[in-house]
């Protein structure tokens, strides 16, 4: 007896400090050999040790067969070890599960209660649908076992069976109900049944209404607080279905609230009154007032009492009331606000949720002020405190007990409540607070805000208290995923942007704020001192200073800051916005055509443009495509502008710009550039509004814009692969030939051969924009030619800024300015009509767009959008400008006509969600094995896969069994002939055969008869036969149950009849 016991193992672990890993490895090795012996004691000890080590994460799935062996030992002690090991180590994919079924069946029918308990406890952990079906027949009789302990465990086990195999409930539910209705039943069994009913109850409450009288009696009789809590929870789901219950429930509930000594029961009573809609139902009666006062009074008491747990749950309850009875909650404002500063973060979070619900015009400033103070006073966590790993992932847990055993010998007493250290604000709490502030303030499109200057100050302050974002998560996060991103800077920036756009009166303040954020010199002051917290706000601030450059009080430092060397280090998203803002601010500086074009001004402008070019030039090779594209576009634009400004076209003979030193400043600066960025004012657009813009009937999205695209692309590609530079050169240069050498060479000098393919593609893509403008535009034009043409056109249409405008937009591929032009072309009246006719308000109301509901959504955005589409139609149809405008007008009217379709659409959406809701419910009631959230999402998929695997497995097993049977028969024949057979082998085989016979319950013959493909069929047969049996039993039991009027029995019968029919058909077919 040199083997280690569990005790030795644990002691050994404690004595091998520092070398646990080696010790465990060697122990597991020992177990591996011990578990293979025939000595059952040794086996079970080894299994016990493995189970202990499994707790620390050491895999023991390899021992699953040995688990079965130990389970099948006749000794209770071994069985217990085996069952524990099975519970702890069996997973869905454990292969021996199939074999375990028989052992489970055997033990369920054991005469010894303690033995019965073992499978009853284990089945919930290991059960799968096919096994559930097999075990059902054996479990049902246990519901009437003489021991109450067995009965109550059986009830729960049946419930778990039903979760994986809903059919369980057909035969089981009548019996369980019988137990529940039996007054003489042991109270503990009744309590267990109530627990199960409660679990089932919220899935399909309507089925449990008939039981309400009995449940009500149980509630009134009381005695068991746990059961009472469960009953109250169940009733809370029943009251919406049966309003009469409310009247009946109210007296006992108020009595319990007044009388009970158990705080948990008291709380759940209040909770039940709230959740069951009782409070709302009796709202206007004197009784209701009293109830409300009682509940709120008790909750207030819980808040004041000082117990953190009570405070927490009281806040939860308040949170539920606040939706329906905000006035009741705001009466308790004092205690709730107190909780915002509570030391316990859980409570703070809860209070925060609550406060968001109860905010109104009067208390907004106070609440936000309180939160702001909290944010400002707590230090920001430095990144050094940010541990990136947790132990489980890195090292695994090493089991050890403490060196000083006296600690472990300490009696278990509740931990004392004296460590009152207040942790610094955790980052996610900080993020949460900031989000909630934004949410509160922006609620219902700023309904609660009276002073926007205050709000802007709050926003600016929030930037300073923003926690740093982790670069890793920032990179990994989907840039659009704002809600879950830790980056609050974006949220703040969006609010700033929102205010600037929506609130015209506050726009200058908002832009001022954005300006202060952007200016580099202020950066230390405006942003948190450590980390990159709030940085994302720059994206929006950058946009604001650009878009509303006219409001800038100090455009020069802004331009300097935008082009600061540190800007290049900004994330690409922000940098791209900056690049866009630079020409906007520049045009604000340069665009004044009233000031004479003095040499001084010329120098200044040239200098500015030189700086811009200097800044943009390196960015034209930036790795981020968006940055690169914008940089290249504006670089070219600026170069042109610089040319125009300097008027030194002599060095570029093709520049053809001979403006020289006019007293009047160059039009490119005063007209063209500003026109790029001015135009229609931006207006907020409701989310989804664009989707509502109906597709014109004559547009065919399937139709290619340019039918030759494929060939063009192919051509470009082949051209790109050609190594012959000259060829490409000529191919590229052919169309422009003599006209555009200057511009072409510009782009060519940079990257001669590598660029060609791309430029080819550009050229191929160019027909689109060119045909936007003019039907007569040539299909195959280079970018630089377009640019040149643009310049020419600009010359031609000097006096018509809008036209030039449009050209420039095309060149820079600005999508929105294009719309602006179109809008300008449109009659103002038509535009207004458009705005009014788009059913935006309805839309946002109906879709329930929460915090971002856009009140002032205007047709402008969609109007802008639609002309674009419209234009796209033109391209396809090759229409001229005149008819285009006509159809454009038609189109503007369309939203009008279609407003009817908009409404049903949202109604349809609503239907959709309700369908989804009912679907998920159904899903839950049928397959609630997805109830552990860690797998909730994947479970559906997994289940499917598992089921498939199960089916395959079954098939395979059947095949194996069939072969075994054949072999067995062969060996029997051999034996009969007197041949010797290896004992051990035979023993094993015989046992297996017995398994099969149990399994198939006399369908053996069929299974034998079936070929491999028919394996599954055979099993089905077995199942059906069993069902038939079960059904008989059920029918016996139904005699009593039917009187209660439960629909279940009847329904079940119908189904069964159907099945029976099908079975007969099957049999016929087989016959």
């Amino acid at each position, binding site marked *: 007896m040199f083997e280690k*016991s569990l*005790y030795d193992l644990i*002691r050994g672990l404690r004595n091998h400090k520092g070398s646990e890993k080696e010790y465990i490895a060697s122990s597991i090795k020992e177990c591996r050999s011990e578990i293979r012996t025939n000595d059952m*004691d040794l086996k079970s*000890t080894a299994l016990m040790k493995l189970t202990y080590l499994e*707790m620390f994460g050491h895999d023991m799935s390899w021992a699953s067969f040995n688990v079965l062996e130990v389970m099948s030992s006749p000794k209770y002690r071994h069985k217990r*070890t085996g069952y524990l090991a099975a519970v702890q180590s069996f*997973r*869905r994919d454990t292969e021996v599960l199939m074999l375990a079924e028989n052992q489970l069946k055997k033990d369920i029918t054991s005469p010894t209660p*303690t033995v019965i*308990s073992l499978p009853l406890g284990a089945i919930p952990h290991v059960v799968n649908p096919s096994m559930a079906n097999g075990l059902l027949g054996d479990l049902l009789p246990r519901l009437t076992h003489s021991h109450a302990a067995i009965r*109550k465990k059986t009830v*729960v086990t049946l419930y*778990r069976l039903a979760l994986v195999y809903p059919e369980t409930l057909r035969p089981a539910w009548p019996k369980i109900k019988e137990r529940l209705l039996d007054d003489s039943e042991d109270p503990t069994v009744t309590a267990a049944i109530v*627990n*199960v009913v409660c*679990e089932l109850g919220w899935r399909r409450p309507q089925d449990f209404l008939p039981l309400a009288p009995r449940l009500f009696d149980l509630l009134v009789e009381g005695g068991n607080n*746990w059961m009472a*809590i469960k009953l109250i*929870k169940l009733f809370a789901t029943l009251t919406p279905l049966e309003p009469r219950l409310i009247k009946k429930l109210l007296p006992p509930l108020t009595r319990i609230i007044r009388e009970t000594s*158990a705080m948990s029961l008291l*709380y759940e009573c209040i909770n039940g009154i709230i959740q069951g809609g009782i409070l709302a139902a009796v709202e206007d009666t004197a009784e209701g007032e009293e109830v409300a006062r009682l509940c709120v009074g008790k909750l207030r008491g819980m808040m004041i009492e000082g117990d*953190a*747990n009570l*405070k*927490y749950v009281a806040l939860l309850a308040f949170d539920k009331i606040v939706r329906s009875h905000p006035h009741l909650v705001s009466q308790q404002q004092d205690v709730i606000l107190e909780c915002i500063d509570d030391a*316990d973060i*859980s409570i703070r*979070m809860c209070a925060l949720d609550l406060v968001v619900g109860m905010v109104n015009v009067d208390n907004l400033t106070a609440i936000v002020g309180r939160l702001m103070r909290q944010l400002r006073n707590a230090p920001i966590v430095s990144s050094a405190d940010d541990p*990136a790993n*947790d*132990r*489980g992932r890195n090292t695994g*847990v090493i089991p050890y007990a403490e060196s000083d055993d006296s600690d*472990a010998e*300490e*009696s*278990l*007493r*509740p*931990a*004392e*409540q*004296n*460590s009152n*250290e*207040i*942790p610094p604000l*955790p980052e*996610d709490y900080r993020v949460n607070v900031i989000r*909630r502030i934004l949410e509160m303030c922006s609620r219902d499109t700023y309904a609660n805000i009276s002073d926007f200057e205050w709000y802007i100050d709050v926003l600016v302050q929030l930037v300073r208290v923003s926690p740093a974002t982790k670069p890793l*998560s920032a990179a990994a996060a989907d840039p659009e995923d704002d809600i*879950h991103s*830790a980056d609050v800077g974006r949220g703040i920036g969006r609010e700033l942007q929102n205010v600037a756009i929506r609130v015209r009166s506050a726009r200058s303040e908002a832009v001022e704020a954005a300006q202060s954020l952007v200016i580099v010199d202020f950066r230390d002051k405006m942003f948190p001192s450590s980390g990159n917290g709030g940085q994302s706000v720059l994206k929006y601030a950058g946009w604001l200073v650009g878009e509303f450059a006219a409001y800038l009080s100090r455009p020069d430092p802004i331009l300097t800051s935008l082009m600061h060397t540190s800007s290049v280090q900004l994330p690409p998203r922000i940098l791209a916005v900056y690049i866009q803002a630079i020409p906007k601010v520049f045009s604000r500086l340069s665009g004044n055509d009233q000031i004479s074009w003095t040499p001084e001004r010329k120098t200044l402008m040239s200098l500015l443009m030189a700086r811009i070019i200097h800044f943009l030039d390196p960015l034209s090779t930036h790795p981020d495509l968006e940055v690169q594209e914008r940089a290249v576009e504006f670089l070219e634009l600026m170069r042109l502008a610089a040319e125009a400004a300097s008027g030194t076209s002599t060095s570029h003979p093709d520049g053809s710009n001979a403006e020289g030193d006019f007293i009047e400043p160059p039009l490119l600066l005063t007209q063209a550039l500003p026109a790029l960025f001015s135009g229609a004012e931006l207006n907020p657009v409701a989310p989804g509004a664009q989707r509502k813009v109906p597709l014109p009937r004559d547009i065919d999205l399937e139709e290619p814009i340019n039918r030759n695209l494929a060939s063009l692309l192919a051509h470009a590609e082949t051209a790109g692969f050609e190594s012959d530079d000259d060829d490409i050169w000529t191919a590229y240069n052919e169309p422009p030939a003599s006209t555009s050498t200057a511009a072409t060479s510009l782009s060519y000098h940079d990257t001669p051969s590598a660029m060609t393919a791309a430029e080819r593609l550009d050229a191929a893509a160019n027909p689109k924009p060119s045909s936007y403008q003019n039907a007569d535009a040539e299909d195959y034009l280079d970018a630089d030619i377009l640019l040149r043409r643009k310049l020419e056109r600009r010359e031609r249409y000097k006096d018509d800024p809008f036209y030039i405008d449009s050209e420039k937009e095309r060149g820079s591929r600005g999508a929105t300015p294009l719309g602006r032009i179109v809008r300008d072309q449109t009659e103002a009246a038509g535009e207004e009509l458009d705005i009014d006719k788009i059913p935006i308000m309805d839309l946002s109301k109906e879709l329930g767009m929460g915090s971002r509901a856009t009140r002032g959504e205007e047709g402008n955005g969609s109007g802008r959008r639609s002309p674009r589409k419209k234009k796209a139609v033109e391209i396809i149809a090759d229409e001229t400008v005149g008819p285009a405008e006509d159809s454009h007008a038609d189109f503007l009217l369309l939203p009008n006509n279609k407003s009817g379709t908009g409404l049903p659409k949202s109604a349809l959406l609503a239907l959709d969600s309700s369908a989804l809701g009912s679907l998920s419910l159904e899903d839950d009631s049928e397959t*609630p094995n997805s*109830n552990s*959230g860690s*797998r*909730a*999402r994947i479970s559906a998929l997994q289940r499917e896969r598992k089921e498939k695997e199960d089916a395959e497995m079954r098939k395979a097993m059947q095949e194996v069994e069939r072969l075994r049977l054949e072999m067995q028969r062969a060996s029997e024949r051999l034996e009969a002939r007197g041949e010797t057979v290896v004992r051990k082998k035979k023993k094993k085989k015989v046992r297996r055969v017995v398994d099969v016979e149990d399994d198939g319950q006399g369908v053996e013959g069929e299974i034998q008869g079936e070929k491999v493909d028919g394996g599954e069929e055979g099993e089905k047969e077995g199942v059906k036969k069993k069902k038939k049996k079960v059904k008989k039993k059920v029918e016996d039991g139904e005699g009593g149950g039917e009187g209660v009027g439960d629909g279940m029995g009847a329904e079940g019968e119908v189904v069964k009849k159907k099945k029976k029919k099908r079975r007969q058909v099957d049999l016929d077919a087989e016959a």
Partner: protein
Amino acid sequence: MINAVLVFNNAGQPRLTKFYTQLDTSVQQRLISEIFTLVANRPNSSCNFLPYVPFRASCFVLRASRLLSPVSRLPSPVSCLLSPTPARPRPAPPTNPTACSLPPLLASSSKSSTPTTPHNDTPSLVTYRHYATLYFIIISTSTESPLALLDLIQVFVEALDRLFENVCELDLIFNFETLHATLGELIVGGVVIETQLDKVVEGVKAQGKVAKRPVNEGKSLGGFGRGEGLWAGR
């Protein structure tokens, strides 16, 4: 329903793990360590719930090195229901700016469902209680009553105390089978079947004699695990 019951000590060493839904061993371990990190860093005056938080940013987790280093314990209890022995005061662990929400594993999954109303089937509540060197954790869905779960933990511990007579962590280390058996009398398959102390104790005792830990483990015989009752008791 109850999704899991966990017991671990102040160092995060598991003493009991019971998951009522099947989970991979590695996932179990991660969950344990995540919950430990969250729970161990809460001040004792905090409430005993880790709530569901819709806007969860990221949870902090401890460095591995800190976890495996010799344990620093939370101050020990004085107010006790089970035994009046005063305990030695110990230095509090360095408080970590820890997350206050659900462990990432749970939170990430519940996030997928509607953020404001956690579904009835998702485990959204972590209830814990700290006794001397041990943490008792229950992970449950929102359909359970939080206060009642605290009472349930109390019943569990009292039952253990009854069975082991002044129970301590060592008892549970060496008798983890009894620990499981006790839990099995309280909860089956995630559903509570019994809340009365007497019945629970009775149920465990019916399964066989409960072993006591040796007075001095050095002297004891190495028979545990191969048969119960080998230890004489203290």
